[in-house]
């Protein structure tokens, strides 16, 4: 059924190479977009929980704007509208960025900012789910607000939201398909191109579907592994029993890097 993918195209490649090139762009958008989104999301999520009404309001505004505009519209805004709003020299410079980068960067930026708004809400929920005694105990020890967030609140909140971040990881790579509307030749765009060239619609989109499904499974499994790796000993229901061996390096280097694993 997928035999047509191995046939040669007009440019001497095989159709499967088109798909793989599309997959590459999809992965690049999802991967870099994810890290940018995560960084912004954590900062905005923290902003949602601070006492300052200025930063709180700013963070709220960010979330409401980017979460509530459809990704497709945001894509068009960054690609078509932004260059027109900027001073003409700058707008022209943006329009002259050669393909595929001229589409890649607006798409990356768009997906990052949209996903960041969603992550921010997860981070806020994670922080608010922590018992009040945690920040109180930190305060009683003299930890500043910054140290409390850095060492007490974030390490716990981020662990807490790993399962719900899984759906954000799956969300961002699925949303990469919207980038085809601004000319990004990612997986879906390549599938459409194959379909147009060969009239094998079922094969082309079937292959794309299988690839998306595989990616979803990989993302899911990876997040499960991360969840297990950062789990706090003694808190797993019925899995790790009391009294397990903890390696001795903890004593040598207290405050181990394992807080950072989540990032």
């Amino acid at each position, binding site marked *: 059924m997928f035999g047509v993918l191995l046939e040669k195209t007009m440019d001497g490649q095989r159709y499967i190479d088109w798909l793989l090139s599309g997959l590459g762009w999809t992965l690049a958008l999802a991967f870099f977009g994810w890290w940018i989104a995560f960084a912004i999301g954590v900062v905005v999520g923290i902003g949602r929980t601070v006492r300052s009404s200025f930063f709180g309001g700013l963070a709220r505004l960010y979330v409401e704007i980017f979460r509530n505009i459809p990704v497709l519209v945001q894509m068009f805004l960054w690609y078509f509208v932004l260059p027109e709003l900027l001073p003409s020299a700058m707008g022209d410079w943006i329009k002259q960025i050669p393909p595929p980068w001229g589409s890649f960067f607006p798409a990356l930026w768009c997906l990052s900012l949209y996903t960041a708004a969603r992550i921010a809400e997860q981070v806020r929920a994670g922080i608010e789910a922590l*018992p009040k*005694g*945690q920040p*109180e*105990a*930190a*305060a*009683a*020890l*003299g*930890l*500043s607000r910054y*140290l409390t967030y850095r*060492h*007490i609140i974030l*390490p*716990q909140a981020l*662990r807490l939201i790993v399962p719900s971040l899984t759906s954000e990881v799956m969300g961002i790579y699925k949303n990469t398909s919207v980038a085809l509307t601004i000319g990004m030749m990612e997986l879906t765009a390549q599938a459409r191109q194959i379909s147009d060239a060969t009239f094998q619609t079922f094969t082309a989109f079937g292959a794309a579907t299988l690839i998306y499904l595989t990616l979803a499974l990989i993302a899911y499994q990876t997040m499960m592994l991360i969840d297990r790796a950062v789990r*706090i*000993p*003694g*808190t797993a229901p019925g899995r790790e029993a*009391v*009294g397990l061996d*903890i390696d*001795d390096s*903890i*004593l040598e*280097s*207290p*405050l181990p890097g394992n*807080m950072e694993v989540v990032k």
Partner: protein
Amino acid sequence: MQQERAVNPYDRFPMVIVEHLIKRFGSFNALSDVNLTVARGEKIVLCGPSGSGKSTLIRCINHIEKHDYGRIVVDGVELTDRIRDINSVRCEVGMVFQSFNLFPHLSVVENCMLAPLKVRGLPQSEALDRAMALLRKVRIHDQAKKYPAQLSGGQQQRVAIARALCMQPKIMLFDEPTSALDPEMVKEVLETMVELANDGMTMVCVTHEMGFAREVADRVVFMDCGSIVEEGDPSTFFRAPNTERARVFLNQIVH
């Protein structure tokens, strides 16, 4: 006012001075005009019915709860809204909570080392030595690498005491430290507190453990409805309280 903080040669001054303290939650008066002085080395037991404001009072002493009116001076530093004053006071005031509040994502020894490392700026090795010494003191050093969820309640509370002591506080506040414990674990925590008292630590304990109060307290302070109703030395207070309210309260807790 703030300048006094840097040098504090007045060691004979009281550890804590609370004057005309008022704390409101909305329209509810949690504390109304409370006055209390804690001398250095003094052990005070605060008791009273629930809702009488005893927890609120000690939470005001390290500014976890912000007071509305009145003055609190801890070790010569007045608690104002200045964040530097508050943090410097909190370093000198150890606190133990009813629900332990250990940091679940850090091992026992890391719980003890965090504040000395990050707040006091102690070198790693020194913080580790201090943490292990204090864990040994509360007899839990063999569990140093475990995580809080792997310990019993009594063990967790002893870790919490060690964690507070790692900052080398000048005063320890205990907010019903044994109330959340199973009966068989109360003793090990109280023993640790008695030892601490015998070392000369200044202590303010909210507790209903009357045996502990008799053995350790220099003074028992009885609160009701946000005010101090009666205070005195434990033997007099328990044998013959002056006020009717204290009598009723004592009758209720001595079943």
